[in-house]
């Protein structure tokens, strides 16, 4: 299992995403309402780069003729055929049990103390960073 520091938390605004290649795999990291999620950047349907799709909400299940919109910012839509995936779980909306995309663990961790070689001070970096485990 690889541990990969991806970026500093303050470099990923809420609602933003970042696509990185870790161990040869393209992975999308999403900042959704204070939490971070990572998804394989390949759609289970025809392997489109899922993570470049639109981050959006969805129409919630409702009665005929009724529209309820919700979960804004928690859904990514495939850039090809438009299938909806739950960013929080990687599961497709239309069939969460059989159509899903691989997810990875993401942790927000304190940045390690870095020793900076200029002069000889040890500098404590008081920042948090986004770490993906694959």
């Amino acid at each position, binding site marked *: 299992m690889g541990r990969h520091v991806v970026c500093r938390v303050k470099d990923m605004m809420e609602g933003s995403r970042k696509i990185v290649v870790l161990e040869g795999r393209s992975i999308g990291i999403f900042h959704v309402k204070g939490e971070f999620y990572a998804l394989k950047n390949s759609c289970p*349907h025809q392997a*489109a780069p899922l993570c*470049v799709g639109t981050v959006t909400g969805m129409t919630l299940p409702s009665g005929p003729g009724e529209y309820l919109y919700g979960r804004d910012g928690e859904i990514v839509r495939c*850039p*090809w*055929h*438009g299938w909806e995936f739950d960013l929080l779980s990687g599961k497709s909306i239309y069939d969460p049990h059989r159509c899903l995309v691989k997810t990875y663990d993401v942790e927000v961790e304190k940045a390690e103390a870095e020793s900076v070689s200029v002069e000889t001070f040890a500098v404590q970096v008081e920042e948090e960073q986004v770490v993906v485990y694959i």
Partner: protein
Amino acid sequence: MSSTRIIDCDVHPYPKNRDEIRFYLKEPWKTRYTGSGRGFYGNPVHGSRLDANPPGGGPAGSDPIFLREQLIDEYGEKHAVLLPRAFCNLLPDPDFAAAIAAAYNDWLADTWLGKFNEDGVFKGSITIAHQDPSAAAKEIERWAGHPHFVQVMTDSGARAPFGQRQYYPIYEACSKYGLPLAIHPGTDGMGINVQPTPGYPTHYIEWHTCLSLGFQAHLVSFITEGVFERFPDFRVVLVEGGVSWLPALLWRLDAEYKALRYEVPWLKRKPSEYVRDHVRITSQPLERPEHDRHLLQVLEMMDAEHILMFSSDYPHWDFDSPRLAFPKLPEPLKQRIFYENAKAFYRL
């Protein structure tokens, strides 16, 4: 995939902006032309692949260099048959419609088939306005003999099923110049085209699913009206009209023929038998039943080996990847669908 050669029979080039088309229009059309698309029944999510927008700007499908990278080179396509989307088939004014069709042809010839086509990868379609079949025939004549136009094309939206005789000048011209007629979805249920969509659907999902019904109506019309008897060299390709409905439709038609041959005495063969000689079908959007074996059975039943041709529909939202659109196929069948059938049909 690398061993499979590919001819992609449905690729859409777009002008960078409306002025590219307007350049080829004379007044009064030049001023009137708005470049608007089909107006309604748009996909509510997105109409083209979101990753198909060229990095240098412009709409998806408008940059030949980027299209080559993302489609031709990515999948190793030998040829892409281009079908521009002029949407002129919904206009009530036949002169305006014909002018737009002609402008699109000039544009395509100069750009995609001209200066961006040194290696001949791109093959084009002659856009016609079927509102005035004689004018359409003249437009076909204007381009016949061009080395890279390989077919004539029209939207499937029409005022009457395509077997009817008002369209014959088009088929005569197609036959004379050896150009097949491609029918592509586009203006069904819009503008002047009430037929043959089933009424007036409410949602895109309804409209898009039912597009294949129009193709079925046109195919039955071609056969029963005796178009293929009247024009023995006339060939048709049904683009993006669905695939797996074909066997059931032809079984039904052949069954009807046993009792109703009396009504169509000009048919010299069983209705279904005209298909292999005269009709080709493109694959996208390929129906994928739950079990791959069911699709393989349908492909066998429909004689896919001879009549099915691969298409991706790049850059539209329902693009089919050459790598993943089909289940695993026996190699000879794959070669035919992805390459051989189109090579023979378009004489490439």
